[in-house]
């Protein structure tokens, strides 16, 4: 905080180097969680990057708890696990870059871990789209609101207009 005040007071122009020190362009590469993900030894760099972006979203934007990363050996990808809030059940998140492919078998593998699964698709502009995947048949929610049977009222109205 003090550093920043000093800079604005003293000068004319903001020293680019100072800004870089504070917000280096490659800050992701230095982030501890990213370094941890790197250490998981997953070859697909794009997938690791996607996983990191999802991690940041879950922790800093949505404030999820106990978020950790792990390697899925069968799929050779970085998976995330976390809770929506304190005490909530654990969930698995599969982060994938949008240009990649998904097969049903991989989905079944992640479901096999036993936690509810979220698929998160990461676009090139880092837009994130989450989707729920569940084993079996999940009945959709019924339509909301009161469903009124208007009977023949509609037909009667039309008739009157004639």
């Amino acid at each position, binding site marked *: 905080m003090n550093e920043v005040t000093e800079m604005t007071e003293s000068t004319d122009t903001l020293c680019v180097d100072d800004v870089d020190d504070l917000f280096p362009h490659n800050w992701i590469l230095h982030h501890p969680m990213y370094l941890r993900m790197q250490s998981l030894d997953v070859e697909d760099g794009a997938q690791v990057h996607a996983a990191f972006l999802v991690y940041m979203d879950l922790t800093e934007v*949505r404030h999820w708890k106990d978020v950790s990363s792990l390697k899925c050996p069968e799929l050779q990808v970085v998976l995330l696990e976390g809770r929506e809030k304190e005490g909530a059940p654990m969930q698995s998140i599969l982060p*994938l870059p*949008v*240009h*990649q*492919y*998904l*097969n*049903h*078998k991989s*989905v*079944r593998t992640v*479901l096999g871990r036993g936690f509810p699964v*979220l*698929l998160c*698709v990461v676009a090139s502009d880092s837009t994130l*789209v*989450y*989707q*729920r*995947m*569940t*084993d*079996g*048949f*999940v*009945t*959709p*929610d*019924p*339509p909301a609101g009161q469903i009124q049977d208007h009977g023949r009222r509609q037909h009667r109205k039309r008739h009157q207009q004639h």
Partner: protein
Amino acid sequence: MDATPTAELTSTPGQHVVEPLQDGGGGDGTSRRPHPLIGIHLCGSTALVWRTADVKAAREAGVVGSLVGALPRQPRQNGRLGRPLQLGQEELRLLLEKQASGDDLESSAPNSDGEVQQAQTECYEEEQRSSFEAQSILALEERKSALLRAMGGAKQGGGTSQPDGGVSGRLEVLDQSFVFPRSAVAVQLRTARAGLSHCSDERTLLSAAQPGSSQRAPRSESRFQVFRDLRQRGYYITSAGKFGGDFLVYPGDPLRFHAHFIAVCVALDEQLPLVDVLAVARLGSNVKKTVLLCSPGGPAAPVHYTSLQWSGMV
């Protein structure tokens, strides 16, 4: 009776009957066999069901199909269509499987023909008898009321006072002596049963071989396995052309329920572009249906189902 509907489809020269038609004993389903055979006609590669009884039997077996014929009184609309019922490839296969396993009528056809004809003759004669009796009763009533009208008219017009005893006397005479001649009986000729392959020898001539399983694409094989498994779980299935999936899955008869699921059949190792996965899930949530990814495990393995839902995380 059943008027054959005018259909828009042109029948190709090679119109084959795949299965023998239902052997109704008395024409209108008076003799119900435990597994009624459903007559399926192939027009090219399209399977059609023409008779109402067969359409009903197919529905009871869980096969919904889609009506594609024009209604004779409303030909210039396609909001409501009539027979024939067009069957999808999976529906056709399911019905044939059921009928192949269920029935042994085919094997006993030569013997049963004689018996069937005997039963049909007896039924016909019984119908004629009861029809004659009913008609003679009605004719007698008609005569009586005509007599009464004549007597009443004569009374009013002529003014001659006939004693009331005369009317009842005449009615009694009529009761005792009235004979309804056989030649005056009205006989109904049914036209519904006439038609292609009513006779057994026509049937054998026209029965066609099944398209070989080697010709079936692997994708249609997986579709059929999913179809059959869903049917066994008690769901009703129709085609899902409007929703971009393979099938629409209903928890009960489509006339009573909205669909719950859009089924998309994929192989377990088939690579799906992620944008397609997102697109179909988003579509499903917009129409309040869950997208079901269905993959058959193998010839004897169970089918795997995964439900895709919009997460609602904005």
